[in-house]
């Protein structure tokens, strides 16, 4: 089905917008009264134009400078965030690499470290024999205990470095 169309629709729209429906020439009014398309157009342009004029009359727009200012601040904030993102990634990669290197060193040097632990654990038996049974009981968990102590000491330092501005 062919869409109803009128070659004078645009002319009618312009006429109603500039002069209102009462300002149409007799000839144009006669055409609009007899044309289904233009009759609808006159009704709609009158209603919508009236609504538009009322809205414009009540409108309080922000100033151009305010729009510009907000846009500038937002663009700057977004640019800063974009620039910061690679640094966050690099810091994460560096921390993970450092943890990996430390773990590798500990693994390679573990036999020597364990001998030191044993020697340290044996010291109380030398100077205070009464604690020897206690030290024997703690020996299996000594590496874990030392690791927990190291984390408790290092964690505040790492958090401080991560959250500091520099």
């Amino acid at each position, binding site marked *: 089905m062919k869409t109803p169309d009128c070659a004078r629709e645009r002319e009618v729209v312009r006429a109603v917008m500039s002069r209102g429906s009462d300002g149409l020439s007799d000839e144009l009014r006669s055409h609009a009264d007899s044309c289904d398309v233009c009759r609808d*157009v006159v009704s709609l342009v009158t209603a919508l*134009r009236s609504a538009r004029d009322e809205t414009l009359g009540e409108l309080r727009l*922000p100033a*151009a400078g305010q*729009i510009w200012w*907000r846009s500038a601040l*937002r*663009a*700057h904030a977004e640019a800063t965030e974009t620039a910061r993102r690679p640094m966050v990634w690099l810091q994460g990669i560096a921390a993970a690499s450092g943890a990996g290197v430390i773990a590798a060193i500990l693994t390679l040097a573990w036999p020597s470290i364990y001998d030191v632990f044993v020697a340290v654990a044996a010291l109380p038996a030398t100077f205070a024999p009464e604690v020897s049974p206690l030290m024997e009981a703690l020996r299996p968990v000594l590496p874990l205990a030392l690791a927990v102590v190291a984390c408790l000491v290092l964690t505040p330092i790492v958090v401080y470095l991560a959250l500091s501005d520099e």
Partner: protein
Amino acid sequence: MADMTLTDVERLVAFEQADRTFQMDEEAFRAFYELTARPLWTYLARTTGDGRLADDLLQESYYRLLRVRTAFESEEHRRHYLFRIATNLVRDHHRRPRVERVEGEGDYPAADARTAERATARIDLARAMEQLKPRERSLLWLAYAQGWSHEEIAASLGLKTASLKCLLHRARRRLLGVLGNPRGEGRS
């Protein structure tokens, strides 16, 4: 300068960079804004039915236009692009899960009705527009409230000019049908 906080310094940097960041300088923007802000706001208000949302979308539309790197052939081309951004924002808004709002809250400012008949007519039109699809509202507003040509509307809404006549006809019939029957029954 010693009295300024870091935030103030950042603001100055932001303003200084704005002319380089944006696709137009402040003076050109002000002139463009004066020409387009009112029609754009009324378009947003009428197609969303929410004045406060129109305020937000107005800011967003201009921000996106300032950030775009498209070379515009003319001011008309820039204007059409702005309305296209606005139309896409309205469409995205309608696609989001809707929160039921209190009727009247955020509506574009109600005029002191000079006559009860004008107030009633305006409410009828607003309610009728709400029953239309977002694209139908856009088509009708641009064609019959702002008087744009089919080519201008097609450029702004990203439609083909050939299909615009049919779409506009359907939207026209639909609105007239709703205005004639506020409960939404009858012709479409």
